[in-house]
């Protein structure tokens, strides 16, 4: 794999993470990180939507009229979001999670990461790198989601994936952790850790 492609995949995971560096997709990362299961399904949904939308729009990029390109992007992204939502609703295993995530699956369409990557990358690159870029950005987003959800479920409910962990040792779940503000505090901590490792992100 050539260096550029590798960079396309690895950059969004850490150095150019959409949440901690580009500060996109904050809203949903506060809302869906109460349980690990929810965060995992949300992460996978965003990966699928981001990857396939980028692929489709990259294939179409030379035919899209410039003046209506945002509308065409919107149609494709909306289609993917509805497809994901419909599929989640159809399976017994994911129906409850879809209900729990409720509006946030539909709101993937407003997730700036999706449209942002299409506009910035997919419209100017070949399909394969565009697909990888979409998937990698979805994964970067998902990684942060899962880290936040791990701490919130562990400290807020004493469980992981619904299985008792801390609860076994008489831990009393902390209700503050369940509330959205704590997700913001956690995100702040993650940004702090990342910037102390990656000094070039620090502002003078």
């Amino acid at each position, binding site marked *: 794999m050539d260096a550029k492609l590798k960079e396309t995949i690895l950059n969004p995971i850490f150095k150019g993470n959409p949440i901690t560096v580009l500060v996109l997709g904050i809203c949903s990362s506060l809302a869906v990180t109460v349980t690990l299961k929810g965060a995992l399904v949300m992460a996978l949904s965003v990966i699928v939507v981001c990857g396939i939308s980028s692929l489709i729009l990259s294939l179409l990029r030379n035919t899209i*009229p410039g003046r209506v390109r945002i509308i065409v992007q919107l149609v494709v992204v909306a289609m993917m979001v509805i497809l994901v939502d419909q599929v989640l609703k159809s*399976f017994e295993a994911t129906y409850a999670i879809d209900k729990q995530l409720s509006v946030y699956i539909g709101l993937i369409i407003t997730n700036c990461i999706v449209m942002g990557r299409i506009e910035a990358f997919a419209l100017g690159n070949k399909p394969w790198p565009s697909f990888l870029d979409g998937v990698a950005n979805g994964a970067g987003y998902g990684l942060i989601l899962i880290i936040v959800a791990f701490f919130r479920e562990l400290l807020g409910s004493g469980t992981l994936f619904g299985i008792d962990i801390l609860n076994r040792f008489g831990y009393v779940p902390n209700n503050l952790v369940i509330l959205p503000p704590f997700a913001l505090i956690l995100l702040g901590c993650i940004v702090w850790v990342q910037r102390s490792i990656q000094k070039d992100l620090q502002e003078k």
Partner: protein
Amino acid sequence: MNTNNNVYTVIYTTVIVVLVAALLAFVSQSLKAKQDANEKAETISQMLTSAQYGTKAELDKLGNAAKLDKYAQEIDKAFVINLDGQVVRELEGIDVYSPKQLKRENYNIKGGPNKTGEPELPVFIFKNGRTVVPIYGAGLWGPIWGYISFENGTATMTGAYFDHESETAGLGAKIKDDPSFQKEFVGEVADFGQANVIEIVKGGAPKDAEGKSVADNKIDAITGATMTSQGLDAAIDTWLAAYAKYFLAQEKSCQKSCCEGKEAHDCKEEAHDCEQHKCEEE
């Protein structure tokens, strides 16, 4: 090719939109059966929750098939009544009302341009002596609905479960997520003779000396969710008022059979604790 000319732009967008619409319509049609099955199982688990067959979390651990089995096993009878409380038809097998059907009946109860016919209201009587009826209405952002269970032949509530489409997480969504709110309905008594069958009040429902809620028709509203609480109050009042004649008649007939010392079906199990003075009055 010039992709910026007007004709091209119009044709291009039209084709894209029609293609996407066709694909989505196809997918929606082909997945509909599975989605309906999931929704039905969810409705059943909500009804079983309100009838006190376990908590929602416990019931959700059962699969779809197990939920349907449990319903088939526990349902005593289910039928549809009209506004006069008369039975219109029986509901055979596993026949429950989806939120969509509740929406239709909600229009029929309220009247107006969306009315499609006379209201047909479902009543579900379970083997554990609970009568479950649905409610439906508007919350702050979208529809809310739910199920309230009563002790057979009385106006005493034994449980409730509410669901919503898009109420605010952490505030209005508590009607679904907060079991302590749903528990508040237990033991309260609906006032079927009045327009305000149940009142969801701000600032706390009346409490007795021990701090327990008085058995009246008042329920504590949810802090920070005034609009959802009001919507739920209106939904419950509209629906229970529509059921009022059925419940009042049921109560009367149970009281009567109790006074005559007869065991009656669909009445409270301990039929002997009917109030003696009420019997003497008659």
